[in-house]
């Protein structure tokens, strides 16, 4: 065996170059926007990039806000990998959150069993709810994009009605649940921050999904079906049970994600609109190319920039939403198949000629 020469046009290296370039372009665009909108763009930009590192609490914020993104990102990447464009995780985050809040408001158990029930029950129900679009897709080939979007709105309506009718706090001005029981909330694990066991669960979930995808038969089936559904069917894979299983797992992940988020950050349920975490999960999955480890990295990166932008927005007139420019640029450039392709082809051709 001859040692393969390192080449910038090789697969992994090319993806890395592409990603780094995408990040640089996204940051450059952000800098331009800052230059147009605020008085001191250079220092604002530096605050945005280094802010989270200046205080332990800020860095804790980064870890906190990445947790729900990791879960929704994993859920979406599983669906996308199977070739399913299902955006139902958004609605799952809402309805799962309502169920979790209901359990969190009941007094029972201790500080171990209460959160356990408040995470597992919504997760199971969420998994089952995801089977609705999953079954319709698997059996009747109903467009999962449309059914999942409709279900999102339905879950929002039902959840909001439930909160208003059965779980409304009387001592609170706007629509929200009563305070969660103390025993239900997750304890902080890093002193000086509000980081909970949620981050550990997120990392564990990433590892489990990684092993499932790349080391098991089920994972192989998922990857094959995503690459070529027809091949998968002809080679004897049962699309029906595969679709159902993938939907269940991703719903389960969504349920865990929303419960962990609520029990970590919130003291009561106060969402009156879809939280947007599910759609953001779809973006995470896209930036990570549906790779579980990638989801972890991307969720960290985006949360880092998000917290950086929040710190920056306190001292400038630029709102934190500036981050949407970074995210959109990254998503579009990274998921673009042809971005830099011409450059790569030239490079490959040159290298090929050298070896002749």
């Amino acid at each position, binding site marked *: 065996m001859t040692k393969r020469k390192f080449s910038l046009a090789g697969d992994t290296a090319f993806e890395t170059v592409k990603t780094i370039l995408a990040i640089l372009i996204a940051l450059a665009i952000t800098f331009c926007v800052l230059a147009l909108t605020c008085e001191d763009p250079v220092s604002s930009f530096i605050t945005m990039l280094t802010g989270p590192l200046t205080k332990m609490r800020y860095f804790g914020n980064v870890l906190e806000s990445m947790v729900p993104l990791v879960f929704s990102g994993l859920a979406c990447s599983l669906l996308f990998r199977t070739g399913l464009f299902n955006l139902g995780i958004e609605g799952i985050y809402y309805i799962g959150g309502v169920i979790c809040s209901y359990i969190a408001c009941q007094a029972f158990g201790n500080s171990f069993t209460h959160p356990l029930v408040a995470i597992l029950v919504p997760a199971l129900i969420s998994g089952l709810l995801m089977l609705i679009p999953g079954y319709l897709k698997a059996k009747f080939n109903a467009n999962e994009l449309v059914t999942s979007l409709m279900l999102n*709105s339905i879950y929002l309506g039902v959840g909001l009605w439930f909160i208003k009718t059965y779980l409304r706090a009387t001592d609170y001005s706007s629509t929200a649940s009563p305070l969660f029981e103390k025993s239900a909330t997750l304890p902080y694990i890093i002193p000086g921050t509000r980081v909970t066991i949620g981050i550990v669960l997120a990392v564990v979930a990433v590892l489990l999904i990684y092993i499932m995808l790349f080391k098991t038969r089920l994972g192989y089936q998922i990857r094959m079906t995503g690459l070529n559904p027809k091949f998968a069917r002809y080679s004897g894979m049962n699309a029906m049970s595969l679709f159902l299983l993938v939907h269940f797992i991703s719903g389960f992940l969504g349920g865990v994600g929303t419960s962990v988020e609520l029990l970590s950050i919130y003291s009561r349920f106060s969402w009156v609109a879809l939280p947007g975490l599910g759609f953001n999960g779809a973006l995470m999955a896209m930036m990570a190319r549906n790779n579980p480890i990638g989801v972890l990295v991307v969720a960290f990166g985006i949360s880092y920039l998000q917290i950086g932008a929040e710190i920056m927005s306190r001292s400038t007139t630029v709102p934190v939403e500036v981050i*949407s420019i970074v995210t959109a640029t990254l998503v579009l450039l990274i*998921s673009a198949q042809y971005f830099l392709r011409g450059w790569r082809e030239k490079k490959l051709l040159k290298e090929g000629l050298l070896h002749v």
Partner: protein
Amino acid sequence: MSEFFRVIFSEEFLSTVVRVLVPLLFASMSAYIASLAGMPNIAVEGIMLMSALFAVLGSYWTQSAWLGLLIAIGAGLAMAVILMLCTIKMGTNPILVGIALNTFSSSFTVFLLYLFTQNKGTSASLPSVVLPIVHVPIIEKIPVLRAIFSGQYTITYICILSMILLAVLVYKTPLGMRMKAAGLDERAAKTAGINVNRVRIIAVLISGLLAALGGAYMTTGYLSIFTKNMIAGRGWIGIAAQAMGGTSMLGVAITTFVFSLFQAITNVFSLYDLPSELINIIPYIGVLLGIILFSVSTYRRSKKG
């Protein structure tokens, strides 16, 4: 109950249906023309939102509602161009681009709103101009018809006009035929000498234009201000209507009409003391059931055939 029917069969109700119908019709036609050419546009929601904001900003900057409308159309077309560049030139999956554009516009509009008004919720502090309400001379006097065709916002008439133009384009011109061909079978269309990419580019631009008009309608007629996430799922309903109507423009239009009827009834119901959250989801359940019935019947037919 008789009160309910009295409301349903009144002229005001008809006129409400039309008011609700216009943005939904723009949305579903925007989704329709794009997917007819085989380039699904699920960024309708985002394009509408962006144009709704730019209609307000534009009319505030220029103090002219018409120039505001033009600026809104420009914003919508810009979004369509991004969609087009990413999908046709960069080979990205159109669904993924759509998701990215939708999330982008829901925060970017807040970003712009805050920059210009220092408020993240509404544009109420911007004195923007709205397009006039049009009274059509003779129709104004005819019962029933006057509820539909007179006293509506300007864009409602633009909507009627664009529906006619769209129908002509799709069913009576070679370009419409090419779009259908490109949507049905890309390779066959290419073999027949159709420049598929060019046809799709045109379709996406028309789709962006229609969505932009729908968005502008929201802030230059229906309301006079922009509020955060004000499109509130109208774009998605358009996409659902397209999914049900398929390649038949009439089918898409009828589905859209049924949805707007649902929404108008929802508005009537909200006068009564009923759980509004549950009433609000009726249209979505309607869409869901429609999609299920449609898929089940397609499934049965394919089993038989």
